[in-house]
């Protein structure tokens, strides 16, 4: 979210003008409000759409358990794929990563490298466990 829209909240409330001290881009109040509210309402629609995706994803995940694929790894892959899609929507929309928050990627990039390393090392180490990996066959 851009600071302009957050600051807009100050002008729509009955709050004392202290809040207004932080407004960076003072705009004509009326014009700002209409635009701002429209923007926020569009955002709400996006939240509702993501909620729909999450509910459908949950239903699919559970349904999958009753259907069952031939091989275990297929079940694992599909379950994790659905979870990844759901997770991506939460991070992108609810946590605003898709729009406006791209500088956060710098923090997340380092985190991602560490976590990916954790998983790669862990999974690689299973090759030295006798009989490991049978589960996925």
């Amino acid at each position, binding site marked *: 979210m851009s*600071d302009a829209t957050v*600051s807009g909240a100050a002008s729509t409330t009955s709050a*004392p003008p202290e*809040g207004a001290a932080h407004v960076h881009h003072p705009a004509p109040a009326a014009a700002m409000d209409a635009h701002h509210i429209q923007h926020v309402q569009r955002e709400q629609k996006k939240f509702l759409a993501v909620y729909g995706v999450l509910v459908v994803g949950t239903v699919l995940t559970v349904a999958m358990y009753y259907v069952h694929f031939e091989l275990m790894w297929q079940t694992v892959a599909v*379950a994790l794929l659905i979870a990844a899609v759901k997770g991506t929507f939460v991070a992108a929309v*609810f946590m605003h990563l898709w729009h406006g928050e791209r*500088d956060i990627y710098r923090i997340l990039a380092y985190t991602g490298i560490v976590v990916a390393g954790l998983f790669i090392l862990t999974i690689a180490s299973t090759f030295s466990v006798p009989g490991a990996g049978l589960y996925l066959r």
Partner: protein
Amino acid sequence: MNQPHMTVPYTTEIREDTGFYNGKVGMWLFLASEVMLFGALFSAYVFLRIGARAGDWPHGLLNIPIGAFNTLVLITSSLTVALSWTSLKMGNFRRYQRLQLVTLACGLAFLGIKSYEYSVKFNHYEVWLNAPLTAQEYPQLAGHAVDADDPVNSIIGHVEGVGSFATLDSLKEAGVSSLTIHPDKFHYRLSAAEQAERRKAERLQPHTEAEGAEHAGVPIDLSRVSRISAFVPRHSTFFANYFTLTGLHALHVIGGLLAFAFILGPGSRMWRVDPVRYTNAVEVTGLFWHFVDLVWIFLFPILYLL
């Protein structure tokens, strides 16, 4: 507040070098550390799961409909958090309050359902025997036909008159000589696919813990028993993982609820003084809440379905 006026910098205004107000950067750094914390536990889970011998990893011991319902509860709370934040951005404090009350209700419902699940697990037992079950005992005690390649030497179900954390030693000390077991229909030594086939064939609902109680009690002499454990962390690697991951997650839910309750209650004075800062507090706490939701989205299929 009687001190000379001191302001926390960058609570609302954007800091040039980071591009955000400080609270948001702080929360994201914290979430990055959280990703690594849960990432470590998840990778430990993956290691243990892949390394488990076939048949050793329990299937069907968790209640999927309840877990799925809890997933929906948490997803709904994430939506109300997001909408409460947009309400504040439009200056509608009333709507924010109503939505956050729903969030708190959802969070408490999640914890309530989770503790119900825990308590059911604590009262469900596995009893390991010194020798594999005999052919005659199989249908009644393990719920499936004899398979010579995969001898089953344990029974799962309810045990009469035994507390949640009894062990073989504690039973011996208490002078118990025989157990009465109400076995479950399914044994986790059946693979998930086998269980699913069986359910389809018998047109049964997925395993619920109540089923065990429907069966008649079977007496087992304590001298035949080699180990006994309820579904507590010591039961198996699976339950150790389950309680570690869900327990840590539940602590996060509690933390998030406390933060939201504070902001909604005593902290709400800030809305009148500095509404932008207040809105930011809700946004940042919301980020944490969405992260907790995100973790659950992965925990549910991993623990309940795989």
